[in-house]
Protein backbone atom coordinates (compact mmCIF):
# COMPACT_ATOMS: atom_id res chain seq x y z
CA UNK A 1 0.00 0.00 0.00
CA UNK A 2 2.74 2.42 0.99
CA UNK A 3 4.58 1.42 -2.19
CA UNK A 4 1.55 2.37 -4.37
CA UNK A 5 1.13 5.65 -2.52
CA UNK A 6 4.80 6.50 -3.05
CA UNK A 7 4.54 5.76 -6.79
CA UNK A 8 1.39 7.92 -7.15
CA UNK A 9 3.03 10.76 -5.21
CA UNK A 10 6.13 10.49 -7.38
CA UNK A 11 4.07 10.63 -10.63
CA UNK A 12 2.03 13.59 -9.35
CA UNK A 13 5.23 15.49 -8.44
CA UNK A 14 6.73 14.78 -11.87
CA UNK A 15 3.58 16.01 -13.67
CA UNK A 16 3.53 19.24 -11.66
CA UNK A 17 7.22 19.83 -12.31
CA UNK A 18 6.82 19.15 -16.04
CA UNK A 19 3.84 21.55 -16.24
CA UNK A 20 5.84 24.30 -14.52
CA UNK A 21 8.72 23.74 -16.91
CA UNK A 22 6.36 23.94 -19.89
CA UNK A 23 4.86 27.17 -18.53
CA UNK A 24 8.36 28.62 -18.21
CA UNK A 25 9.23 27.61 -21.79
CA UNK A 26 5.98 29.08 -23.08
CA UNK A 27 6.58 32.31 -21.16
CA UNK A 28 9.99 32.70 -22.78
CA UNK A 29 8.86 31.63 -26.25
CA UNK A 30 9.48 34.22 -28.96
CA UNK A 31 6.11 33.81 -30.63
CA UNK A 32 4.13 34.30 -27.43
CA UNK A 33 5.96 37.51 -26.60
CA UNK A 34 6.25 39.35 -29.91
CA UNK A 35 3.98 40.34 -32.77
CA UNK A 36 4.94 39.34 -36.31
CA UNK A 37 6.01 42.92 -37.11
CA UNK A 38 8.12 43.26 -33.96
CA UNK A 39 9.71 39.91 -34.65
CA UNK A 40 10.64 41.05 -38.16
CA UNK A 41 12.43 44.06 -36.65
CA UNK A 42 14.42 41.79 -34.31
CA UNK A 43 15.21 39.38 -37.16
CA UNK A 44 16.52 42.23 -39.28
CA UNK A 45 18.61 43.43 -36.37
CA UNK A 46 20.02 39.93 -35.88
CA UNK A 47 21.18 39.85 -39.50
CA UNK A 48 23.42 42.85 -38.77
CA UNK A 49 25.07 40.71 -36.05
CA UNK A 50 25.97 38.14 -38.71
CA UNK A 51 27.47 40.92 -40.83
CA UNK A 52 29.36 42.24 -37.79
CA UNK A 53 30.73 38.75 -37.12
CA UNK A 54 32.24 38.33 -40.59
CA UNK A 55 33.51 41.93 -40.63
CA UNK A 56 35.35 41.31 -37.35
CA UNK A 57 36.55 37.89 -38.53
CA UNK A 58 38.16 39.52 -41.56
CA UNK A 59 40.08 41.97 -39.32
CA UNK A 60 41.11 39.01 -37.12
CA UNK A 61 42.29 37.13 -40.19
CA UNK A 62 44.50 39.96 -41.44
CA UNK A 63 48.24 39.29 -41.25
CA UNK A 64 49.12 42.65 -39.73
CA UNK A 65 46.54 42.53 -36.91
CA UNK A 66 48.50 42.86 -33.66
CA UNK A 67 47.91 40.42 -30.82
CA UNK A 68 46.48 43.13 -28.55
CA UNK A 69 43.83 43.87 -31.13
CA UNK A 70 43.23 40.16 -31.68
CA UNK A 71 42.50 39.81 -27.98
CA UNK A 72 40.01 42.68 -28.20
CA UNK A 73 38.44 41.09 -31.26
CA UNK A 74 38.14 37.74 -29.47
CA UNK A 75 36.14 39.44 -26.70
CA UNK A 76 34.00 41.26 -29.21
CA UNK A 77 33.29 38.15 -31.31
CA UNK A 78 32.61 35.94 -28.31
CA UNK A 79 30.14 38.55 -27.03
CA UNK A 80 28.15 38.03 -30.24
CA UNK A 81 27.81 34.30 -29.61
CA UNK A 82 25.79 32.31 -27.12
CA UNK A 83 28.16 30.54 -24.72
CA UNK A 84 29.65 27.19 -25.77
CA UNK A 85 28.39 27.42 -29.33
CA UNK A 86 29.80 25.19 -32.03
CA UNK A 87 30.29 26.65 -35.46
CA UNK A 88 31.40 25.14 -38.76
CA UNK A 89 34.97 24.90 -39.83
CA UNK A 90 34.58 26.58 -43.23
CA UNK A 91 37.14 24.28 -44.81
CA UNK A 92 36.25 20.86 -43.34
CA UNK A 93 32.64 21.38 -42.14
CA UNK A 94 33.64 19.97 -38.73
CA UNK A 95 31.90 21.44 -35.71
CA UNK A 96 34.36 23.55 -33.74
CA UNK A 97 34.22 26.20 -31.04
CA UNK A 98 34.34 29.90 -31.92
CA UNK A 99 37.80 30.16 -30.33
CA UNK A 100 39.04 27.30 -32.49
CA UNK A 101 37.59 28.95 -35.59
CA UNK A 102 39.46 32.14 -34.71
CA UNK A 103 42.67 30.18 -34.37
CA UNK A 104 42.11 28.62 -37.78
CA UNK A 105 41.48 31.90 -39.64
CA UNK A 106 44.19 33.91 -37.87
CA UNK A 107 46.74 35.48 -40.24
CA UNK A 108 45.17 33.68 -43.22
CA UNK A 109 44.29 37.00 -44.86
CA UNK A 110 40.74 35.86 -45.63
CA UNK A 111 38.03 38.08 -47.05
CA UNK A 112 34.44 37.30 -46.08
CA UNK A 113 31.26 38.32 -47.78
CA UNK A 114 27.72 37.27 -46.97
CA UNK A 115 24.59 37.76 -49.02
CA UNK A 116 20.98 36.63 -49.31
CA UNK A 117 20.43 36.53 -45.54
CA UNK A 118 16.95 35.19 -44.86
CA UNK A 119 15.03 33.96 -41.90
CA UNK A 120 13.99 30.35 -42.42
CA UNK A 121 11.95 29.32 -39.41
CA UNK A 122 11.23 30.43 -35.85
CA UNK A 123 11.42 27.97 -32.99
CA UNK A 124 10.94 28.37 -29.23
CA UNK A 125 13.87 30.65 -28.39
CA UNK A 126 15.67 30.94 -31.71
CA UNK A 127 15.19 31.24 -35.42
CA UNK A 128 17.35 29.97 -38.24
CA UNK A 129 18.87 32.22 -40.85
CA UNK A 130 20.29 31.06 -44.16
CA UNK A 131 22.89 32.92 -46.16
CA UNK A 132 25.57 32.49 -48.79
CA UNK A 133 29.11 32.92 -47.49
CA UNK A 134 31.94 33.71 -49.89
CA UNK A 135 35.49 33.33 -48.58
CA UNK A 136 38.34 34.64 -50.65
CA UNK A 137 42.05 34.06 -50.19
CA UNK A 138 44.35 35.45 -52.84
CA UNK A 139 42.85 34.08 -56.05
CA UNK A 140 40.95 31.21 -54.41
CA UNK A 141 37.25 31.59 -53.72
CA UNK A 142 35.08 29.32 -51.60
CA UNK A 143 31.31 29.63 -51.48
CA UNK A 144 29.13 27.95 -48.86
CA UNK A 145 25.44 27.89 -48.04
CA UNK A 146 25.14 28.30 -44.31
CA UNK A 147 22.20 27.92 -41.97
CA UNK A 148 22.77 29.43 -38.54
CA UNK A 149 20.73 29.67 -35.37
CA UNK A 150 20.06 33.06 -33.83
CA UNK A 151 18.95 32.93 -30.22
CA UNK A 152 16.54 35.46 -28.76
CA UNK A 153 15.61 35.12 -25.11
CA UNK A 154 15.28 37.17 -21.94
CA UNK A 155 18.24 37.50 -19.62
CA UNK A 156 18.99 39.43 -16.47
CA UNK A 157 21.42 42.14 -17.49
CA UNK A 158 23.44 44.29 -15.12
CA UNK A 159 23.77 48.03 -15.76
CA UNK A 160 26.19 49.03 -13.00
CA UNK A 161 24.13 49.02 -9.83
CA UNK A 162 20.91 48.25 -11.70
CA UNK A 163 19.66 44.94 -13.00
CA UNK A 164 16.81 44.34 -15.39
CA UNK A 165 15.46 41.60 -17.56
CA UNK A 166 15.95 42.34 -21.24
CA UNK A 167 15.58 40.27 -24.41
CA UNK A 168 18.94 39.68 -26.08
CA UNK A 169 20.15 38.33 -29.41
CA UNK A 170 23.04 35.90 -29.75
CA UNK A 171 24.48 34.07 -32.70
CA UNK A 172 24.22 30.30 -32.41
CA UNK A 173 25.26 27.06 -34.07
CA UNK A 174 25.99 26.79 -37.75
CA UNK A 175 24.21 23.86 -39.32
Amino acid at each position, binding site marked *: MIKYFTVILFLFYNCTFAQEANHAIAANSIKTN*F*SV*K*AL*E*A*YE*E*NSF*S*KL*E*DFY*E*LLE*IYSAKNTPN*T*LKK*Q*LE*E*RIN*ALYKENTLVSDFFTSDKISVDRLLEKVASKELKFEIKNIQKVKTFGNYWTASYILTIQRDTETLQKNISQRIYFYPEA*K*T*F*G*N*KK*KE*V*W*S*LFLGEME
Partner: protein
Amino acid sequence: MTELDFFQLLKQEVLLTYQKQYPYFQGNWKSFSSQDIQNLIELVEEKTRQGISEKWIYTHLKAETNSKLPRKDMLDILSQFSGFSGWDEFVFKNREVAVEQKENHSQKNKRHFVVIGFLAVIMVAILFFAYSGKKQTQKLQLKNEFTNDTIQAKEVKAYTIEDDKKIEIPIRNSEIEVALKDENAKVVIQSPYYKKQEIKVNKTSEKTEILLQPDDYAMMLKAFMKSDIKDWETRKIQLNKILSDNLEVIVMLKNDLGAEYFNKNEFSEKLVIPTESVKRMQILEIKNNDEGKIEFIRIKQ
Protein backbone atom coordinates in the same frame (compact mmCIF):
# COMPACT_ATOMS: atom_id res chain seq x y z
CA MET B 1 -15.12 127.17 -76.19
CA THR B 2 -14.58 130.54 -77.84
CA GLU B 3 -15.56 131.49 -81.39
CA LEU B 4 -11.91 131.29 -82.39
CA ASP B 5 -11.85 127.69 -81.11
CA PHE B 6 -14.84 126.93 -83.29
CA PHE B 7 -13.02 128.50 -86.22
CA GLN B 8 -10.09 126.12 -85.63
CA LEU B 9 -12.58 123.28 -85.72
CA LEU B 10 -14.01 124.61 -88.97
CA LYS B 11 -10.55 124.70 -90.49
CA GLN B 12 -10.19 120.98 -89.61
CA GLU B 13 -13.61 120.27 -91.16
CA VAL B 14 -12.57 122.09 -94.37
CA LEU B 15 -9.44 119.94 -94.58
CA LEU B 16 -11.47 116.74 -94.03
CA THR B 17 -13.92 117.79 -96.76
CA TYR B 18 -11.03 118.54 -99.09
CA GLN B 19 -9.49 115.12 -98.33
CA LYS B 20 -12.75 113.45 -99.39
CA GLN B 21 -12.15 114.83 -102.86
CA TYR B 22 -8.38 114.54 -102.77
CA PRO B 23 -7.69 111.51 -100.58
CA TYR B 24 -3.99 111.50 -101.37
CA PHE B 25 -3.66 114.73 -99.39
CA GLN B 26 -2.71 113.61 -95.86
CA GLY B 27 -1.13 116.78 -94.54
CA ASN B 28 -2.31 119.80 -92.60
CA TRP B 29 -2.73 123.53 -93.30
CA LYS B 30 0.98 124.08 -93.02
CA SER B 31 1.71 121.60 -95.79
CA PHE B 32 -1.26 122.78 -97.84
CA SER B 33 0.39 123.66 -101.17
CA SER B 34 -0.52 126.34 -103.73
CA GLN B 35 -1.95 123.58 -105.91
CA ASP B 36 -4.10 122.45 -103.01
CA ILE B 37 -5.25 126.07 -102.60
CA GLN B 38 -6.26 126.20 -106.25
CA ASN B 39 -8.06 122.91 -105.88
CA LEU B 40 -9.86 124.15 -102.81
CA ILE B 41 -10.92 127.38 -104.49
CA GLU B 42 -12.45 125.35 -107.31
CA LEU B 43 -14.13 122.94 -104.93
CA VAL B 44 -15.64 125.73 -102.82
CA GLU B 45 -16.91 127.44 -105.90
CA GLU B 46 -18.35 124.21 -107.19
CA LYS B 47 -20.05 123.28 -103.93
CA THR B 48 -21.26 126.67 -102.64
CA ARG B 49 -21.33 128.71 -105.85
CA GLN B 50 -19.32 131.32 -104.01
CA GLY B 51 -15.76 132.48 -104.39
CA ILE B 52 -12.83 132.51 -101.99
CA SER B 53 -9.53 134.18 -102.72
CA GLU B 54 -6.07 132.69 -102.57
CA LYS B 55 -4.94 135.53 -100.33
CA TRP B 56 -7.79 134.89 -97.88
CA ILE B 57 -6.79 131.28 -97.68
CA TYR B 58 -3.19 132.23 -97.00
CA THR B 59 -4.24 134.79 -94.38
CA HIS B 60 -6.87 132.83 -92.49
CA LEU B 61 -6.58 129.15 -93.24
CA LYS B 62 -2.87 128.51 -93.71
CA ALA B 63 -2.01 130.57 -90.65
CA GLU B 64 -1.33 128.35 -87.65
CA THR B 65 -2.98 130.69 -85.19
CA ASN B 66 -5.72 133.18 -85.75
CA SER B 67 -5.88 136.31 -83.67
CA LYS B 68 -9.28 137.39 -84.87
CA LEU B 69 -12.34 135.77 -86.29
CA PRO B 70 -12.83 136.19 -90.10
CA ARG B 71 -15.89 137.80 -91.52
CA LYS B 72 -19.17 136.01 -90.97
CA ASP B 73 -19.91 135.60 -94.75
CA MET B 74 -16.60 133.82 -95.25
CA LEU B 75 -17.36 131.61 -92.27
CA ASP B 76 -20.74 130.79 -93.80
CA ILE B 77 -19.09 129.81 -97.10
CA LEU B 78 -16.63 127.45 -95.41
CA SER B 79 -19.38 126.02 -93.16
CA GLN B 80 -21.55 125.32 -96.19
CA PHE B 81 -18.55 123.74 -97.92
CA SER B 82 -18.23 121.45 -94.90
CA GLY B 83 -21.90 120.36 -95.03
CA PHE B 84 -23.58 122.80 -92.70
CA SER B 85 -26.20 125.45 -93.52
CA GLY B 86 -23.89 128.15 -92.22
CA TRP B 87 -21.55 129.27 -89.45
CA ASP B 88 -24.35 129.39 -86.88
CA GLU B 89 -25.31 125.75 -87.41
CA PHE B 90 -21.65 124.75 -87.34
CA VAL B 91 -21.13 126.51 -84.01
CA PHE B 92 -24.40 125.18 -82.59
CA LYS B 93 -23.70 121.56 -83.56
CA ASN B 94 -20.13 121.64 -82.36
CA ARG B 95 -21.10 123.31 -79.11
CA GLU B 96 -23.45 120.37 -78.44
CA VAL B 97 -20.66 117.96 -79.29
CA ALA B 98 -18.27 119.90 -77.10
CA VAL B 99 -20.70 119.90 -74.20
CA GLU B 100 -21.36 116.22 -74.74
CA GLN B 101 -17.65 115.52 -74.89
CA LYS B 102 -17.10 117.60 -71.81
CA GLU B 103 -19.83 115.75 -70.00
CA ASN B 104 -18.48 112.44 -71.24
CA HIS B 105 -15.03 113.48 -70.24
CA SER B 106 -16.12 114.52 -66.78
CA GLN B 107 -18.16 111.31 -66.44
CA LYS B 108 -15.18 109.36 -67.64
CA ASN B 109 -13.03 111.18 -65.12
CA LYS B 110 -15.58 110.45 -62.43
CA ARG B 111 -15.59 106.77 -63.44
CA HIS B 112 -11.80 106.77 -63.38
CA PHE B 113 -11.84 108.28 -59.94
CA VAL B 114 -14.35 105.67 -58.75
CA VAL B 115 -12.32 102.80 -60.27
CA ILE B 116 -9.03 104.15 -58.92
CA GLY B 117 -10.61 104.79 -55.54
CA PHE B 118 -12.09 101.28 -55.50
CA LEU B 119 -8.74 99.72 -56.44
CA ALA B 120 -6.99 101.80 -53.80
CA VAL B 121 -9.46 100.62 -51.15
CA ILE B 122 -8.90 96.99 -52.24
CA MET B 123 -5.12 97.43 -52.18
CA VAL B 124 -5.23 98.99 -48.73
CA ALA B 125 -7.51 96.18 -47.53
CA ILE B 126 -5.20 93.50 -48.99
CA LEU B 127 -2.17 95.10 -47.40
CA PHE B 128 -3.98 95.46 -44.11
CA PHE B 129 -5.11 91.83 -44.04
CA ALA B 130 -1.76 90.57 -45.29
CA TYR B 131 0.02 92.54 -42.63
CA SER B 132 -2.31 91.72 -39.77
CA GLY B 133 -3.02 88.08 -40.85
CA LYS B 134 0.55 86.98 -41.54
CA LYS B 135 2.63 86.37 -38.48
CA GLN B 136 5.85 88.25 -38.41
CA THR B 137 8.65 85.75 -38.51
CA GLN B 138 12.30 85.73 -37.66
CA LYS B 139 14.94 83.42 -39.13
CA LEU B 140 17.60 82.09 -36.80
CA GLN B 141 20.62 80.09 -37.83
CA LEU B 142 21.88 77.31 -35.57
CA LYS B 143 25.63 77.29 -35.06
CA ASN B 144 28.26 75.57 -32.97
CA GLU B 145 29.41 78.17 -30.47
CA PHE B 146 33.08 77.15 -30.64
CA THR B 147 33.63 76.26 -34.28
CA ASN B 148 30.96 78.62 -35.67
CA ASP B 149 29.95 75.82 -38.05
CA THR B 150 26.29 75.47 -38.92
CA ILE B 151 24.51 72.54 -37.27
CA GLN B 152 22.87 69.80 -39.31
CA ALA B 153 19.11 69.34 -38.94
CA LYS B 154 19.42 65.65 -37.97
CA GLU B 155 21.52 66.57 -34.91
CA VAL B 156 19.14 69.02 -33.33
CA LYS B 157 15.46 69.63 -32.67
CA ALA B 158 13.78 72.99 -32.16
CA TYR B 159 10.48 73.71 -30.45
CA THR B 160 8.34 76.67 -29.54
CA ILE B 161 6.48 76.56 -26.27
CA GLU B 162 2.89 77.74 -26.48
CA ASP B 163 0.49 77.21 -23.60
CA ASP B 164 2.94 74.70 -22.12
CA LYS B 165 2.82 72.69 -25.36
CA LYS B 166 5.94 71.89 -27.37
CA ILE B 167 5.49 72.52 -31.07
CA GLU B 168 8.34 71.33 -33.27
CA ILE B 169 9.85 73.87 -35.65
CA PRO B 170 11.20 72.46 -38.91
CA ILE B 171 14.91 73.07 -39.53
CA ARG B 172 15.94 73.87 -43.08
CA ASN B 173 19.51 74.63 -44.05
CA SER B 174 20.43 74.88 -40.38
CA GLU B 175 17.81 77.60 -39.94
CA ILE B 176 14.59 77.88 -38.00
CA GLU B 177 11.83 80.37 -38.69
CA VAL B 178 10.06 81.57 -35.58
CA ALA B 179 6.61 83.13 -35.75
CA LEU B 180 6.40 86.19 -33.57
CA LYS B 181 2.86 86.08 -32.27
CA ASP B 182 3.52 88.09 -29.20
CA GLU B 183 6.53 89.50 -27.47
CA ASN B 184 7.41 86.31 -25.62
CA ALA B 185 8.05 83.61 -28.21
CA LYS B 186 10.01 80.95 -26.33
CA VAL B 187 12.25 78.69 -28.40
CA VAL B 188 13.84 75.52 -27.03
CA ILE B 189 16.75 73.85 -28.82
CA GLN B 190 17.51 70.24 -27.88
CA SER B 191 20.20 67.94 -29.16
CA PRO B 192 22.11 64.92 -27.90
CA TYR B 193 25.33 66.68 -28.90
CA TYR B 194 24.67 70.21 -27.60
CA LYS B 195 23.59 71.64 -24.30
CA LYS B 196 19.89 72.49 -24.15
CA GLN B 197 19.16 76.11 -24.82
CA GLU B 198 16.06 78.21 -24.27
CA ILE B 199 15.80 81.62 -25.82
CA LYS B 200 13.15 84.29 -25.99
CA VAL B 201 12.54 85.92 -29.33
CA ASN B 202 10.51 89.08 -29.71
CA LYS B 203 9.71 91.61 -32.41
CA THR B 204 12.46 93.96 -31.34
CA SER B 205 15.10 91.24 -31.13
CA GLU B 206 17.82 91.50 -33.74
CA LYS B 207 19.16 88.00 -33.13
CA THR B 208 19.96 86.13 -36.34
CA GLU B 209 21.70 83.08 -34.91
CA ILE B 210 21.59 80.71 -31.98
CA LEU B 211 24.95 79.53 -30.74
CA LEU B 212 24.86 76.07 -29.19
CA GLN B 213 27.45 74.88 -26.75
CA PRO B 214 28.64 71.38 -27.67
CA ASP B 215 28.63 68.58 -25.10
CA ASP B 216 32.22 67.32 -25.23
CA TYR B 217 31.46 63.74 -24.22
CA ALA B 218 28.59 63.44 -26.68
CA MET B 219 30.78 64.80 -29.44
CA MET B 220 33.47 62.25 -28.59
CA LEU B 221 30.92 59.47 -28.71
CA LYS B 222 29.71 60.60 -32.13
CA ALA B 223 33.28 60.66 -33.41
CA PHE B 224 34.01 57.20 -31.97
CA MET B 225 30.99 55.69 -33.67
CA LYS B 226 32.18 56.90 -37.06
CA SER B 227 35.86 56.09 -36.59
CA ASP B 228 37.92 53.28 -38.07
CA ILE B 229 40.02 50.70 -36.24
CA LYS B 230 42.95 53.08 -35.78
CA ASP B 231 43.58 54.34 -32.22
CA TRP B 232 41.28 51.68 -30.76
CA GLU B 233 43.33 51.51 -27.52
CA THR B 234 43.04 55.26 -26.88
CA ARG B 235 39.35 55.03 -27.64
CA LYS B 236 38.95 52.24 -25.10
CA ILE B 237 40.58 54.33 -22.36
CA GLN B 238 38.53 57.41 -23.25
CA LEU B 239 35.28 55.44 -23.35
CA ASN B 240 35.97 54.10 -19.90
CA LYS B 241 36.40 57.70 -18.75
CA ILE B 242 33.31 59.25 -20.34
CA LEU B 243 30.83 56.41 -19.81
CA SER B 244 29.24 55.91 -16.41
CA ASP B 245 29.44 52.41 -14.88
CA ASN B 246 25.65 52.53 -14.72
CA LEU B 247 25.34 53.21 -18.44
CA GLU B 248 22.22 51.94 -20.14
CA VAL B 249 22.08 52.02 -23.92
CA ILE B 250 18.83 51.44 -25.76
CA VAL B 251 19.04 50.75 -29.47
CA MET B 252 15.62 51.36 -30.98
CA LEU B 253 14.82 49.00 -33.82
CA LYS B 254 13.06 49.80 -37.08
CA ASN B 255 9.79 51.74 -36.60
CA ASP B 256 10.27 51.55 -32.82
CA LEU B 257 9.03 47.97 -32.91
CA GLY B 258 11.57 46.79 -30.39
CA ALA B 259 14.76 47.62 -28.58
CA GLU B 260 18.08 46.07 -27.70
CA TYR B 261 19.86 46.92 -24.45
CA PHE B 262 23.58 47.23 -23.81
CA ASN B 263 25.54 47.92 -20.65
CA LYS B 264 28.81 49.84 -20.44
CA ASN B 265 31.05 46.89 -21.21
CA GLU B 266 29.01 45.73 -24.22
CA PHE B 267 28.62 49.21 -25.67
CA SER B 268 32.30 50.09 -25.18
CA GLU B 269 33.32 46.92 -27.03
CA LYS B 270 31.13 47.93 -29.92
CA LEU B 271 32.70 51.38 -30.12
CA VAL B 272 36.28 50.25 -29.63
CA ILE B 273 36.01 48.37 -32.93
CA PRO B 274 33.11 50.03 -34.73
CA THR B 275 31.59 47.89 -37.49
CA GLU B 276 29.43 49.17 -40.34
CA SER B 277 26.28 48.59 -38.27
CA VAL B 278 27.67 50.85 -35.52
CA LYS B 279 28.55 53.53 -38.07
CA ARG B 280 24.92 53.52 -39.24
CA MET B 281 23.59 54.21 -35.73
CA GLN B 282 22.17 57.60 -34.92
CA ILE B 283 22.17 59.00 -31.40
CA LEU B 284 18.78 60.37 -30.38
CA GLU B 285 19.26 61.18 -26.73
CA ILE B 286 22.06 61.36 -24.19
CA LYS B 287 21.76 61.87 -20.44
CA ASN B 288 24.65 62.63 -18.15
CA ASN B 289 25.01 61.98 -14.45
CA ASP B 290 26.05 64.54 -11.85
CA GLU B 291 29.71 63.98 -12.69
CA GLY B 292 28.99 64.71 -16.34
CA LYS B 293 29.55 61.10 -17.40
CA ILE B 294 27.14 59.59 -19.90
CA GLU B 295 24.70 57.26 -18.17
CA PHE B 296 21.92 56.91 -20.75
CA ILE B 297 21.99 56.77 -24.55
CA ARG B 298 19.07 56.24 -26.89
CA ILE B 299 20.09 55.22 -30.38
CA LYS B 300 18.21 54.68 -33.64
CA GLN B 301 19.41 51.64 -35.56
